[in-house]
Every structure is written in structure tokens, then in C-alpha cells.
């Protein structure tokens, strides 16, 4: 009974293993198409790019005619047209020039196409500075480090660019850039009005700044709306630039703070060490050339910068909020599925092999005992038989021999039983013909097989 129950249990386990294996296979195949759609390219502000002409990058400044400018350059080796913003360290530039004749024409930023062409047509100017873009001959010098961009955009300092370009024109090795921009801590008197504005509106616009409101791209750059913005005009040349962001970060801990000095943007606040340099380098590396040539209002510069911050955020470099999807149990379990499947297959195979083995059940007691009893009866009857009963007895013995052979061959009990039934009826017929009672199989066996 217990054996039968355990066998039924094993059989059930076998089919359960098969069902689980098939289910795992189906899950695995169905899950294959789910793992396609992972993209870091879904960052929203793709349309907010810097567009030619339409972004207010052209200033009201204009330049004289080519002839007038040529005459001015011929008269003076440094000509500063009205509205120009570029400054440089005169002693370093003069030292780089040495005794050669280098004439510098400085034009304001934000000129339109025709005005720029006029400036470029001034043949006797060795070096042209358009805004803070420095070019001369076949060369153009561009800043390529954060310090260089900071000097160029926060102050308008083009000393390094001029020195590099002059070295290029003179076929000399370029001297290394010098980070000559000095910084100082902001005083509390400078901070106080900013803090008051920031507490009230989250935005401080100093006199001379060209920002009017926080750009729309701030919502995705700093989700939560907690970020603070300070817009300042370009810092004066030759004086240390205060570090407002650092001072404000002490007043507003755990708050993103964006400070603009002209076109230069500094970030302070959470994750500044991980993120500020990445965002600034990628932003100024891409748009630095345009910023130096044109006069973009701070509104547009900040908007483009915040779009870049959003891109960086969605790229997963900065505190990784969005592209990471919530925990999906299927995704977590997927690597384990093959092994679960293999385990189920093995269980099924093991149990199948077990069930296929030849059932080695104990031989049943019934047929051999009957065969033995009937054989004994036949032997006893053969001593008493006469010609009338002989055929039936012989047929019975034949059937008994067949039953024995069947038993030896492990044929089914039902077959052996049928042969024994035949033998019994033959012996019964023979016994009825005998003159003695007690030899009928039913009577004879009753005493022995119970």
C-alpha cells in the first residue's frame, strides 16, 4: 500500500517536472522579445539647440568699412573697435610678439555675416579678434580646457589664445597655457542680496545680466524645482573673480546652484565633483566656438547648458535617476531559468528511466501453488487411470506442462491462469470417469490451498 502510494507520488513528480520544464521554456522564449527596448537616447530636450541667427546672438554693434579699418590698423598696431570685449595681458602678448610686426584688430561679438567678412578683408591685420574668437593667417586659436574657457567666457581674457596664435604664426613651439584667472571667496556683503532674492524667487539677476527668467529646460535638468540660479555680467578683467557658488552652497546646502559669469556657467551643490566638469566640458567643447564669436544672451546660453545637463543626467553619468527601470522579477530570474529547466529535465529523465525499468514485482503466489497442486493430483491420478479417462488426463497434463513453460517464461498470470483453468477442467473430466471419489480438482485442492 505504502509502495503503491510512493509510486503514484513519484509518477506525479515526474509529470510535474515535465510541466515545469515546458513552462520555463515558454517563459524563456516569451521573455526574449522584452529585452530589446533599452535606450539612453530618450532624453527629451533634443529640439532645444543653438540655431543660427534666431537666438539673439547678433548684437547691435557694427564695424566701419574695410578701407577705414585698414587705415586704422596701418596707424596703430592694436585697434579696438567700439563694443569689443576681448582683453589680454599686454606684457605677455608683447613678449610673445617680440620685435616682429604683429597688428591686432579687435571687433565686437555678434557681427552678422557681411560685417564679419569686412573684418576678415582687412589685409594688414595680422590677428583678428571677433568677440573672443582669435584667428590670424590660416590659424585659429581655441581654448580646450576648462581654465581656458573660464578665462575666455567669464572675463573675455584671450591672452593664452593670442600667445598661442602668435607662436603659430612665427613657427615657434606653442607655450603652455597659464591659468592666470585669480579667484577669491565672496564676501557676505556680496552674498546677502543674492540670498534674499534666491529665498524669494530662486533667481537672482544682477544689473547688466541678460537673463530674464529661468529657462524651461530647467525642469528636466534639475527635477523637483529646487535649483537656484544667479546671473551676473562678465567679470571685470584683471581683478579676482569671486566664487559665489561656493559661498551660496554653504547657505543652501543640498541645493543645485547655477551661477553665470557672462557666458561662463558654474555649478555647485549635490554631486558637483562628479558632474560639474563633465557638463561644462561637454557644453563648452561643443558650443565654445559659437559663444566666442557671437553675443548670445545669457537666457539662451543657460537654456542650452541646462539641456546638456539633462542629457548628462539621462546618460546615467549623474545620479542616475531615469533610465533605470524598476525591478522586474522576470528579468532577475531570467539567468537562472536555463538551470531550473535543466534540473527539471534531469528529474523527468531520472524518473522516466526508473519507471521504464522492468517491473520486478514479487511473483504472485497463486498460479505456482495451483500448478503444484494440480501436478500432484495428476501424478496421483495417473496411477489409477484407465483407458476411458486417459485422454482427458493426458490433455490435462499437457496443459499443465504448457502452464509450467509459460510460468518459466514470465508470461502474464492471466495467461497461466487460463491454461490452469483448462487443465483443471480436463482433470475434472478424468476424475469423473474414475471409480474413486475425492480426485475432482475442486475437492482435492480444497484441503491444500487454503
Amino acid at each position: 500500500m505504502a509502495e503503491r502510494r510512493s509510486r503514484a507520488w513519484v509518477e506525479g513528480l515526474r509529470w510535474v517536472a515535465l510541466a515545469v520544464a515546458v513552462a520555463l521554456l515558454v517563459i524563456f522564449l516569451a521573455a526574449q522579445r522584452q529585452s530589446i527596448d533599452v535606450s539612453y537616447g530618450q532624453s527629451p530636450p533634443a529640439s532645444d539647440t543653438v540655431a543660427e541667427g534666431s537666438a539673439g546672438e547678433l548684437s547691435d554693434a557694427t564695424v566701419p568699412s574695410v578701407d577705414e579699418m585698414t587705415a586704422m590698423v596701418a596707424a596703430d598696431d592694436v585697434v579696438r573697435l567700439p563694443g569689443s570685449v576681448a582683453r589680454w595681458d599686454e606684457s605677455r602678448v608683447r613678449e610673445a610678439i617680440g620685435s616682429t610686426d604683429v597688428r591686432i584688430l579687435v571687433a565686437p561679438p555678434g557681427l552678422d555675416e557681411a560685417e564679419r567678412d569686412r573684418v576678415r578683408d582687412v589685409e594688414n591685420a595680422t590677428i583678428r579678434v571677433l568677440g573672443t574668437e582669435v584667428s590670424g593667417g590660416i590659424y585659429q586659436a581655441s581654448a580646450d580646457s576648462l581654465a581656458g574657457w573660464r578665462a575666455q567666457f567669464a572675463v573675455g581674457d584671450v591672452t593664452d589664445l593670442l600667445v598661442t596664435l602668435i607662436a603659430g604664426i612665427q613657427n615657434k613651439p606653442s607655450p603652455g597655457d597659464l591659468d592666470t584667472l585669480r579667484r577669491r571667496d565672496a564676501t557676505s556683503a556680496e552674498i546677502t542680496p543674492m540670498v534674499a532674492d534666491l529665498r524669494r524667487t530662486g533667481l537672482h539677476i544682477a544689473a547688466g545680466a541678460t537673463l530674464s527668467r529661468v529657462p524651461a529646460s530647467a525642469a528636466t535638468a534639475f527635477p523637483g524645482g529646487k535649483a537656484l540660479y544667479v546671473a551676473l555680467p562678465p567679470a571685470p578683467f584683471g581683478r579676482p573673480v569671486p566664487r559665489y557658488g561656493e559661498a551660496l552652497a554653504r547657505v543652501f546646502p543640498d541645493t543645485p546652484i547655477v551661477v553665470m559669469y557672462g557666458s561662463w556657467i558654474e555649478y555647485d551643490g549635490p554631486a558637483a565633483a562628479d558632474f560639474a566638469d563633465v557638463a561644462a566640458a561637454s557644453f563648452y567643447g561643443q558650443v565654445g566656438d559659437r559663444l566666442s564669436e557671437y553675443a548670445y544672451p545669457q537666457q539662451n546660453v543657460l537654456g542650452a547648458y541646462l539641456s546638456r545637463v539633462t542629457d548628462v543626467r539621462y546618460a546615467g553619468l549623474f545620479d542616475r535617476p531615469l533610465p533605470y527601470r524598476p525591478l522586474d522579477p522576470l528579468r532577475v530570474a531570467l539567468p537562472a531559468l536555463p538551470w531550473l529547466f535543466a534540473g527539471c529535465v534531469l528529474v523527468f529523465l531520472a524518473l522516466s528511466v526508473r519507471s521504464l525499468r522492468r517491473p520486478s514485482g514479487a511473483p504472485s503466489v497463486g498460479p505456482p501453488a495451483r500448478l503444484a497442486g494440480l501436478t500432484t493430483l495428476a501424478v496421483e491420478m495417473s496411477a489409477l487411470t484407465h483407458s476411458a479417462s486417459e485422454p482427458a488426463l493426458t490433455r490435462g497434463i499437457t496443459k499443465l506442462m504448457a502452464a509450467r513453460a509459460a510460468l518459466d517464461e514470465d508470461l502474464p498470470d492471466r495467461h497461466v491462469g487460463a491454461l490452469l483453468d483448462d487443465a483443471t477442467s480436463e482433470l475434472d473430466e478424468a476424475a469423473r470417469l474414475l471409480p474413486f471419489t475425492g480426485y475432482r480438482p475442486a475437492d482435492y485442492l480444497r484441503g491444500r490451498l487454503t
Partner: protein
Amino acid sequence: MSWLIWLIGVVLLFVAGFAAVLLPRRRANELDRRTAWSAARAAIDTAGVSRDAAPARVAEAEQLLARAESIAAEHGGRAAAESAADCARRADRLWRSADHG
């Protein structure tokens, strides 16, 4: 690696399925055949005894038994065994009725 597991697993499942169906069926067929031949041989032997005990020859019964023995000599499948057993039983019945009658 993982794909190999799936592939091997699926192949093994198919093999196991075929084996689980075909092996018992073949074994049962074999047992049936042997059982049928056992019954057929028993019937032929019995018919032989009845023939020897019969008082007179019965031509039809002898034909039947001869046919049963020739079928048995060829060792066919289960159907052959059953037809041999059938012939032998009919022959046996004829001889017995001749004996009693």
C-alpha cells in the same frame, strides 16, 4: 552556454518522450506475442493428444491440425499464433466429438 542548455534540454525531453511511449509498447507487444504462441502450442499439443485418443481418423481435423502446425513452424507474429491456436482448437473439438460420439 545558456542556449546550449535549452537545446540539449529540449532534445532530451523529446528523446525521453519517445522512449517513454515506444519502449513499453514494444515490450507489451513482445509479451503478447509470446503469450499467444504459448497458448497456440498448448492447443496444438492438446489436439495431438485428442487425435491419439480418437477411435477413428477424422480427415478434416487432421487437415486443421496440419495447418496449425505449419503456421507454428513459420513462427509468425501474434495474428499467426492466434489463427494456429484457432485451427488446433477446432481440430481438438472434432476429435473429441468423434471420441464421445
